[in-house]
Structure formats: C-alpha cells, structure tokens
C-alpha cells in the first residue's frame, strides 16, 4: 500500500499521530521540490511526484476515518449502498420535521435540535466503535489477519457517512432559518 510505504510504515489501522508527523517532516525535508530546485529536470519531476504522494499519504493516514477508508479500498471492500435499517424510522420522522421547518413551521425546531444532538452523540459512539475494531484488527495482524473485522469496519464507516450527512443536512436547514 503506497501511502504506508511513502511514510515508511507497515499497513495497519492504528497509527501514532506524533510518529506520523515526525515521519512526514523528515521525508518532506528530504524530498520537497524546494530541496531540488537546482537539480536536473528528471530529478525535479521525481521530487514533485514523491512529495505529492507523501502529502496525499499524510493527509489520508492522519485522519482515522480517511485512513480506514483507504485501507478498505486497498482491500477491495466496497461500501454498501443501503442506509442502515435501524435508523430508518428516526430519519423518516426527521425528514418530516425538516419539511415543516422549510415551510416555516418553527414548532419543528426543538425536535430537529434534539435529533441533531442525538446524531452527534451517535457519531461519537460510532467513532469509538471504529477505534475498538481497529485495535482488534491490528492485533489479528500479528497472526492471520481477520478479514471479517474489515467487513465490520466497512459497516461502521458506511453508517458514519450516513449519520454525518444527516447532521450536515439538519444543520444546514437550522442555520438557513435562523438567518431569515
């Protein structure tokens, strides 16, 4: 996996943030195009390519969610298109309340604020679950990697994406009507 290679790391889901930053700075000092400004065209091009990958790698790996997404992508585990079934009812109700607010019915606001707060809490729980699964998976890397854990993580990431989209939608609507 080239993002891990770019930072000289073994693939895994748990990374130490400080170590990552240190590796990033170290390699930047070595490969940044500013360091090769007077080299030949070929070496300049190489420095540009290497640094672009290094930057892309650091940006992806320093964020646990983006990191897990990249890891799964590299394992060809694609996301399912289905929304999480256990949230359907709540989402249905929230959409009704959103419609009411859009029509100018302010009485829907407290319900929406409640819903948003619940989703924000849920997001924190999801992140907690993600890191628990990540630790578990990395342990399994010492022996035979447990692929079933990756499928579980896929589910968590999909749920996360869905919930953060919900939060974004509610906030957008809440803000629009505050400013009016």
């Amino acid at each position, binding site marked *: 996996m080239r993002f891990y290679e770019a930072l000289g790391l073994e693939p895994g889901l748990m990374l130490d943030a400080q170590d990552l930053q240190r590796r990033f*700075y170290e390699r*930047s*000092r070595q490969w*940044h*195009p*500013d*360091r090769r*400004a*007077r080299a030949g065209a070929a070496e300049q091009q190489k420095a*540009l390519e290497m*640094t*672009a*990958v290094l*930057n*892309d790698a*650091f*940006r992806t790996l320093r964020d646990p969610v983006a990191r897990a997404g990249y890891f799964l992508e590299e394992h060809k585990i694609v996301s399912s298109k289905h929304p999480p079934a256990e949230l359907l009812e709540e989402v249905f109700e929230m959409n009704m309340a959103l419609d009411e607010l859009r029509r100018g019915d302010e009485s829907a606001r407290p319900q929406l604020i409640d819903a948003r707060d619940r989703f924000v809490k849920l997001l924190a729980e999801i992140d907690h679950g993600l890191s628990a699964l990540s630790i578990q998976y990395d342990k399994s890397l010492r022996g035979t990697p447990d692929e079933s854990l990756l499928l579980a993580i896929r589910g968590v990431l999909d749920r996360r994406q869905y919930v953060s989209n919900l939060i974004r939608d509610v906030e957008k609507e809440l803000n629009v009507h505050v400013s009016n």
Partner: protein
Amino acid sequence: MSTFQIDFGNAQSTIVGIDLGTTNSLVAVMEPTGPRILSGIVPSVVSVTSDGQVIAGGDARAMLITHPERSVYSVKRLMGRGADDIQDELKLFPFHLADSSESVLRLQLGEKVMTPPEVSAHILRKLKNDAEAELGTPITQAVITVPAYFNDAQRQATKDAGRIAGLEVLRLVNEPTAAALAYGLDKRKEGIVAVYDFGGGTFDISILRLHDGIFEVLATNGDTHLGGDDIDNMLLRIAFEDIQSEWGQDISAKADAVQLLRRAVIEAKEKLSFVPSAVIHFEFGGKSYQREITVDVFNRLIEPIVERTLAPCRACIADAGVKVEDINEVVMVGGSTRIPLVRSAVEKLFRSRPHTELNPDEVVALGAAVQAGVLSGDVQDQLLLDVTPLSLGIETMGGLVSKLIHRNSTIPASASEQFTTAVDGQRNVLIHVIQGERELVKDCRSLARFDLKDLPLMPAGLARIEVRFLIDANGILSVTARDVRTGAEQSIDVKPSYGLSDEQVEAMILESFEKAGADFQERQVREARVEADSMLAAVEKARHDPTYRELTGAERNAIDASIQDLLTVYNGTDHLAIREKLDQLNGATLHLAENMMNTAVRGALKGTKI
C-alpha cells in the same frame, strides 16, 4: 568564467525574491547576514510615453496624473481574470479595455495594447534591471510572491509575467507564508502563528505550525479583492459627492482629476494612522475642495471593510483545527495594517497584540528572498510546506461539483479519477475542471476544459481512462491521463478558461525581445562588462590568496596578459569580444582556481565554514 565562480562559492547566478504588489513592488536578495531589500520601492504603475516607450515605476506614477489614459495601476487586480468577471472593477478603476478582450483582458495604453501579464512584466523588468545594477550581476531567476488566495489562473498569469520579463520563476510563494519566513528567522522554534496580510488590493490570512525550521501552513483564507484600494475608493466616492454638490460638477469621468483626487485621498488616509484628523485637499481647474476627516469618522467609514477581513480569519482558524488560544503569535503584513482600527480589530479577534516590528511593506519581499535562499541551497534549515487555498473539482451530472483535492491540502497534492464512455464508439470525453468551495459549477470558477481524445473504439462503459490531477508547489495544476488497460499515455487537449496559451506567452517573449532590439544589444554589452568586473575583482582578491604564490612565473604572466587583453576590449561595444577575452582570462586562471578550490574543500572537510 563559470569555473572561477564555482571556486568562489556561487556557482550559479543569484536568485532574487520579488514582491509583485498591487500598489508597490520590491526586490530583495539573500545574503549571508540575512535578506536585504535592493534599491527602492517601485510603484506598480506602467505608462506608455508619447514616443511609444513603456516605462514602469516612479516615472510612470508621475505620468498617471498627467497622462492617465496612457497609464495603468493596480493591474494585479486583473491578473488571470476574464472580461466578464471584472465589471465591478471597471466601475472603480480607470482601466481602458481594448476591443479584443476575450478570455484574456487587453488594456489600451495610448496606442499600445497589453495584457495584464505584459503590464506586470514591465514592472518585473524594472525590478530586474534595478537589481542587476545594484548587484552587478545578471539576474535570470526569481521567486515571486502571490496572494495566498490566488486561484490557478491568477498564479499562471503571474508566472507568465515572469517569463515575459525574462525571468525563470523558480517558485511562486504565498505572501503571508513569505512574511512568516521573514519573521521566523532566529525567532520562535515551535508554535502556531497567524499571518494577517492586508495589502493594497488583497487580503489573506494564514495559520502556520512552526516546527524546527519547518513552516507548515495549516490553513489559509482570504479575499483577492479586498484591500486599501477599497478604502481609497470609498473616500473617493464621498469626495465626488461633496464636489458635485459644492461645484455642481461631476468630475468622476475626468481621468486626470480622478487621479489627483485619489492621491489627495490616499495622503489623508495615510496621515490618519498617525494623527487624529486630516484634510483632503484638492485643487482642479482653478477650484478648490477641502474636507477634514477625523479618526472617529474615518473609523466609522472603514469599519465595514475591516469587518470583511474577520470572517475569513474565523473560517481559517476553524479550518486549521486550532483554537484562538492555541495561536502564539500574530504577524501583520501589508500597508493597510498600519491603520489603528485594523490593529485593534486583529488584537481583539486573536486576543494578543500583533507583531509589527518589521516594515509591513518590506516583509513579503524579505521572505521571498529567504525562500530564494532555500531554493539555491544557501538556506538549509528552513522549509515551507504550503497549501492550496481552493478546492479542486470536476463537473458531474447536473452541473454539480465533485471535489477531488480539498482546500488546505498540502501541496504538491494529487488525485486520480477514472473516466469511461457513455455511448458505444465514443471517441472523446470532456472534463471540466473547477476551483471553488460551492456545490454548483456555476458558483465556482472554471479552470479549464480537458478533452480526452482519440479513445479506442469500444462499447459504452468499457474504456478506462485514469486522469491524474497534480497541483505543484506553486499551486498550479497539471493533468495527465492514461489508458488503464494498455498503460499508454492518453492524449489530452487543454483549454484554459482564462489566461494566455503557451504560444501566446512565447510570442510575447519574442516580441519583447524584438522591441527591445537596440536596448538588448546595449544590455548584452553591459552584462558582459558586469561579468568582467566581477572576474577582475575576483582575480585581484585571489592575488592575496596563499595559493597565488604557488603559481609559476609563466602562469602569473599569462594571467596579467589576459587582464590587459580584457581591459583593451572592455570599453568597446562588442560584447562577444569582451566574452572572448573573459574566456581567455578564465583559462589562464584555471590552475589558480583549482588550487583555491582544493584548499577550500580541505577547509570544509575540517569543518571550517567557507
């Protein structure tokens, strides 16, 4: 010559740092003691004299008042922009557009027509000539600063200006980042720093993390059309109205009157940073207008403009992922930060007293010189990691933007996307690349259209073309494509939405050389003499070197004879003759140079600094 120069430790020519500002421009150079501003401030004004000569700087600024229709200022506002998106500017600035303005603006200056990069090139050439005169060495490479919030087209236009002026632009550096570099020297080793850059025409805010010589930009934000110009224009409008009611005359259409009044307004504005009250004093056509403005009134007038800088600051803090209290220092850059209200607004927002030790007009150029030192290898311990200010995306179905590289990504940055065909036998795919943060294409800025052409004949959906978008360290995009199945490079046609094509830039470079024909001849001679001067000086210095005594008598005689030969042709007008004698002297001193070099290397190996 080159061999000898290597031995004196400056194998390659000097790289200068240039602040190409909206109002003023400056050139600086890195020296062992630190960055230094060369010559003086050059007003960013270009004029065409009645005999067709193009002049830039102070002389052009004088012509701005006598011949406003032959002059242009604040051209930076027009860089990389199209005729359709500068309508607002045209209301406030006396830019005279030529008829042929399409995706590139063309300005009418007297009988000449020039694009904004060509106008900027004249300013750059003036800086280049000033620097050459002061340093006594030819300048061919430069670092040029740009507002952090400049988009791809504006950056490309700046790079084009450099090329037209005969400068290889080794790096475009963001102005606030350059300022941080100038401040960062011998200062704080670790910490979070904010740079508030409020100049003549642009506003930038950047937040950086400093770590042991690394300047990592965490986030940047800004407004490329917000600056001291806006304050001037506001005061101008007020004066126009006053004069209209006092004189019963609208002078806003009289270009020379407007320029005079603009100068009066700017004088008053600048005074108000130091005294509690100032008078706008203006005389025209035998009539006179005076208006006193107190600081209180001034503050009330400019408050909305100052307020407009604060929203980008808050967004930048959020994007950087830091809290206000995490920010250790705030650095002020740009002439408009002299205004006390600006300082107090910044102090209030960041809850700390901003740094104003360095001259806010010079700090960007100084930083550019430091970056020039980084590129030349003279500055080893500092490194800038900058970001792209705007997200890069492509147009998808329904006029929506799909983001590929998010804003504030460290550059160089890249992203890949696979494309395929929608119908059987489709031979090309059009990709529309966009810069901006909004969800709809129409709310973002069109960068370019890429045409993937000559695709293999195939049923729909089978072709697999991988397109790679790469933003380089200058913040400029390049695109490559390859056929995933064959691995072959896929041909691609680029149509930039704004700006000059490569051919147009080449033509302008040629033209600028032809026009400068006689001028050029003279320059060649002057440059050859400059090289001869530094060579002669180097040899004189070398006579005191211990290795000089190790030369044989014949070798010393050859050197003296070569010097005599060089001096004979020195005052002639044939630059080739001077260069020939220079080469001869170079050959005669080869052995001396080698000996000195070896001694220097031995010294270096012992850990002595050369």
